């Protein structure tokens, strides 16, 4: 039943039976601070119990996939960063790696390590936003002050390496745009040394806080089989005890070299999702430490002049480099015909990028399989029969980013 039909049916029922007990329709969103963006929920309420909800999305649809078809491969990177704006590194990681797979391009090991470091730093930053906003929605205001304090440091590090604080255009087809700047490693080490104690602080505020526990335990529970049927991935699925982490099941970017655990929950409620994400941040800190310790020497980008821009310094002295540079910027590089689907484990689940190439310098189709979009489908079965107040907890616990949902 479409939302419009639902509203019409209810109104008709209401007119035919005046005075009888009718469900009330409350429109939550699209502009509501608790919906993490522009999500509209048409809610049918019986008292304060939810009979049904109809999520309406598309308010943030930007047509990025359409625009990518009219941009060259290297230009489209800038566009895909704008999808899931809390995890930009993951978007461009999936996209660039898919294009690299089509080109059969080997990228240097050092670039892979830098990608892992930045992805895990981004995961921490994203989880911190989730924790702060979820706490804020349930009235734990202090948590947000604490998490945003550390997120600022993580963003400073991202800014140091890429020059941007939000839509990092740092990974390129072939590796990373630049090597780690001087002083970056020391600052990153200081950050990961400090982080475990900070995570303990958040835990001290929430983990045994009776209000937090009461508001999140046994809220938003779905059986694991149903979650898999609904395509839910990421912490929301692992909280139900399903051991699916793409970094382990289908390792990419050299994740198989790192020693880390996949946190799992047992009940699959909002509280378990909270503990899983908290433990994931701890694991990310460990992975960053190992990557820094084992950082291999070498270049930060592949040495393939057909795809990768020549170093800036050569342009003044080498005519060949100038020609390569001009050709790449004006015409782009051609990708042989084929299709590739590359998926990474983003903070929200499986983020896959599907690229169809037709031999021209522009992609025929770029599609992002965004975990937020898929996970949001689980909200309706989750919310039926629960209280309206718990709906806010559920939206928060799924950690949807509407930029990723609507693309």
């Amino acid at each position: 039943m479409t939302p419009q039909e639902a509203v019409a049916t209810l109104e008709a029922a209401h007119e035919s039976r005046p005075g009888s007990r009718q469900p009330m329709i409350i429109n939550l969103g699209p502009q509501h601070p608790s919906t993490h963006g522009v999500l509209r929920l048409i809610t049918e309420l019986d008292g304060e119990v939810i009979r049904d909800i109809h999520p309406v999305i598309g308010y943030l649809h930007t047509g990025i996939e359409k625009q990518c078809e009219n941009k060259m491969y290297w230009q489209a990177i800038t566009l895909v960063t704008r999808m899931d704006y809390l995890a930009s590194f993951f978007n461009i990681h999936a996209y660039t790696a898919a294009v690299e797979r089509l080109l059969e391009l080997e990228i240097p090991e050092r670039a892979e390590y830098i990608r892992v470091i930045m992805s895990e730093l981004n995961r921490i930053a994203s989880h911190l936003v989730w924790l702060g906003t979820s706490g804020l929605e349930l009235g734990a205001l202090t948590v947000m002050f604490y998490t945003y304090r550390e997120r600022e440091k993580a963003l400073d590090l991202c800014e140091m390496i890429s020059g941007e604080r939000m839509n990092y255009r740092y990974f390129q087809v072939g590796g990373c745009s630049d090597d780690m700047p001087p002083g970056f490693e020391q600052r990153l080490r200081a950050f990961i040394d400090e982080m475990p104690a900070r995570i303990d602080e958040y835990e001290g505020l929430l983990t045994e806080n009776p209000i937090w526990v009461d508001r999140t335990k046994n809220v938003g529970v779905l059986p694991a089989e149903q979650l898999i049927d609904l395509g839910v991935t990421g912490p929301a699925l692992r909280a139900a005890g399903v051991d699916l982490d793409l970094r382990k099941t289908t390792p990419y970017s050299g994740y198989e070299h790192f020693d880390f655990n996949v946190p799992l929950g047992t009940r699959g409620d909002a509280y378990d999702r909270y503990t899983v994400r908290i433990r994931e941040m701890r694991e990310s800190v460990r992975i960053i430490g190992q990557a820094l310790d084992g950082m291999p020497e070498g270049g930060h980008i592949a040495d393939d002049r057909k795809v990768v821009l020549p170093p800036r310094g050569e342009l003044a002295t080498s005519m060949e480099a100038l020609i390569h540079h001009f050709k790449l910027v004006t015409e782009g590089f051609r990708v042989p015909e084929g299709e590739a689907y590359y998926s990474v484990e983003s903070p929200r689940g499986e983020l896959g990028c599907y690229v169809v190439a037709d031999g021209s310098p522009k992609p025929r189709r770029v599609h992002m399989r965004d975990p937020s979009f898929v996970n949001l489908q689980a909200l309706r079965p989750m919310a039926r029969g629960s209280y309206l107040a718990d709906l806010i907890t559920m939206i928060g616990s799924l950690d949807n980013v509407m930029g990723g949902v609507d693309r």
Partner: protein
Amino acid sequence: MSEVAATIEAAVRGSVTEEVLHAGELTIGVAKERLLEVARFLKGPPLSFALLSDVTCADFPERPGRFRVAYHLLSLASGNRLRLRVWAGADAPEVESVTSVWPTANWHEREVYDLFGVRFRNHPDLTRIMMPLDWEGHPLRRDYPLGGEEVQFTDAV
């Protein structure tokens, strides 16, 4: 023919139309009429592709089938991935919905319908999802204009 394709063909006769192994990814083309049977077979043992990651589509106006719907599957047991491809047809493109097999396909198929105009038979709620309900046209088709502004001057050097 790979082992997976042979298994599918043995279970559902006349279903596999093509097979591509490119960049380490296995793609199997499926006949449009047999898609639902193949989907049911793939979800159960022995292959058990329990998770449907993604349903999407690409538009090839120059080819007879035009709309190529792609299904990305992941097996939780083995970690294997598989892509199914179905050509939906140029005029009145229509494919059988796999929502009854993988409920997650619901929104994916709505998105493909919304942006490409491919209809899914027996879909529980085939309405637009990204665009407003009264929107005309299907934006991701190749012949849909991109919009934007004309250049306002012509005397540029």
